[in-house]
C-alpha cells in the first residue's frame, strides 16, 4: 500500500461547499465489489486534477469531484447509493 492517498475525511470541505449535509459520515456501497462503508473510509487521491475516491477493498473509483473556477463536477457512478444520516 502506498503513501500516496489520504482518507475520505479529506473530501469533507469540497463536498460541504456543494451539499448542505456532511457526506463523509454517509454510508456508501461500492458499485464494483459491494463494499459498504463510510465515505470517510474511502482512499482519496488528492494530488490530481480532481479528487478521486477509491474503494478500500477493491480500489475501484467510487467518487470523483472536479472543481472548476465556477463549476464543479461530481461523478458517483462507482457508488450504488449513499445512506445519509439526518437529524430526526
Amino acid at each position, binding site marked *: 500500500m502506498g503513501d*500516496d492517498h489520504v482518507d475520505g475525511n479529506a473530501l469533507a470541505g469540497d463536498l460541504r461547499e456543494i451539499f448542505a449535509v456532511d457526506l463523509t459520515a454517509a454510508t456508501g456501497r461500492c458499485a464494483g465489489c459491494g463494499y459498504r462503508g463510510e465515505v470517510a473510509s474511502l482512499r482519496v*487521491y488528492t494530488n490530481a*486534477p480532481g479528487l478521486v475516491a477509491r474503494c478500500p477493498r477493491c480500489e475501484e*473509483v467510487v467518487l470523483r469531484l*472536479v472543481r472548476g473556477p465556477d*463549476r464543479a463536477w461530481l461523478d458517483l457512478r462507482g457508488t450504488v447509493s449513499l445512506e445519509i444520516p439526518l437529524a430526526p
Partner: protein
Amino acid sequence: MAIVSPGFSGRRRSSDVQLPPGQYLTEDFPVLTAGPTPRVPTDRWELTISTEAGRKHVWSWQDLTGLPAEKITTDIHCVTKWSKLGTRWKGVSLDVLLEEVETAADFALVQSYGGYTTNLPLEDLLDGQAWIAYRYDDDDITPEHGGPARLLVPHLYFWKSAKWVRGIQLLLEDEPGFWETAGYHDYGDPWREQRYQGD
C-alpha cells in the same frame, strides 16, 4: 473574491519565458496520481494498438525498445497550473508505431495499466507530435512518473500524456476518458487554456 495573502507566492519561480495563460513555472516534477501506482515488469509489458475494425497490433518491451527512438526536449504544462521547461525524454514516435496500422479513425482512446484513460484526436498523435517515452533525463522512467512507458503529447495538457500506457484504441467517434468524463476538456490545448468542458 478571495483575500490576498501578502507575501505569499507559493512554490513558484518567476520567469521571462512566456508560459501558456494561467500557468506557473516549477522546477521540481510534481507527481500527480488518481490511484495506486501500477508496477509493470517489462517482461510482462505490452502495447496494443487496436483499430476500429478490431485489428490488434501488439509490441513487447523488446519490440518497442528495438525500434528507432528519438530524443525529445520539450516543455510540459499540467492542468493543475504548473509548467516545467526543457524536460528530456527518449521514446518511439507514434508515427513509427502507426505506420503499418490501417485505419479510418479520427479519434484515439489511450488506455493505461491501472485503468486510466484519456482521449484525443488521432491527428494529434501523428506528425512528430507524440511518443511512447521510456526514458526521462537519461534514466528509466520511474513508476511514479509513468514508467516503464508513458505517452508523451507535450502540446496538450499533461493529463493527455497517459502514464503506464498499455494501449491505444482507434475510434470513429470521440470517447471521453477518465478526466474528460469528469469535467475536463476533450482537447486540452494549454495555449487556448482549454482546461474544462466548454473552455
